């Protein structure tokens, strides 16, 4: 029997301009589809947060808001998994070098929490070797009751 969870129920592929607010062009559809496919509010929140952080990072830090650059976003929703891939056209970075924002001396820094939030709220996150593409996966929580 074929693995039904491997067949995406919904998929989107889009190139976003490197401008603030562009994430909505993907996240609005993504959130609507997650709702239509019965994902829980807490899972939807987590996916929204991670997608937002990843796309904003790509636009602001990866592409440096360069209007000549785009951010490629692919999203898939299957029965038990949501997958988001975000790729920018920047030089990449080392996600391992991001300072720990929970250390006492960085706790009150106004920025630098995006990667940490993605790791905390998604089941898996993986950067490519260059650091200009990130894969986010969320395994669906089983329904309660």
């Amino acid at each position, binding site marked *: 029997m074929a693995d039904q969870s491997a067949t995406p129920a919904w998929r989107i592929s889009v190139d976003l301009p490197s401008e*603030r*607010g562009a*994430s*909505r062009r993907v996240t609005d559809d993504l959130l609507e589809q997650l709702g239509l496919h019965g994902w829980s*509010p*807490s899972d939807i*929140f*987590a996916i*929204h*947060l991670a997608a*937002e*952080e990843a796309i*904003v990072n790509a636009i602001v830090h990866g592409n440096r808001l360069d209007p000549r650059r785009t951010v490629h976003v692919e999203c898939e929703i299957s029965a038990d998994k949501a997958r988001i891939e975000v790729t920018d056209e920047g030089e990449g970075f080392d996600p391992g070098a991001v300072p720990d*924002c*929970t250390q006492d001396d960085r*706790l*009150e*820094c*106004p*920025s630098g*929490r*995006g990667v*940490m*939030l993605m790791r*905390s*709220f998604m089941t898996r996150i993986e950067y490519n070797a260059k650091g200009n593409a990130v894969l986010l996966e969320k395994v669906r929580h089983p329904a309660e009751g």
Partner: protein
Amino acid sequence: MATHRRIDVSKTNDVTVVKFVDKKILDEAGIQELGAELFSLVEQDNRRSILLNFENVDFLSSAALGKLITLDRKVKQAQGRLKMSNIRPEILEVFQVTKLNKVFDIRAEEAEALSAF
């Protein structure tokens, strides 16, 4: 007093109670405007006891956290007090994961927060 677009401001006893107009606090322009309005409460209106009530907020991004951190710093520098309340569980988890629950004074409900001033 300035006109606000991103916040609703009221007063209970001597505490300034702030509620948020936007259910989702995530777009850059909106966050900048929100930050300016919050800071003006301290810097222009001289409010010293401020409660942020998040009952209307469904989502906030890490950029919004930055504004809250800056607001907290401004309030402390002015020898004031800042508290937060009515934060939905998912957003509370954001504060816990980032350990900002150690920085901010977070209460479950507005009444509890008001009595703690």
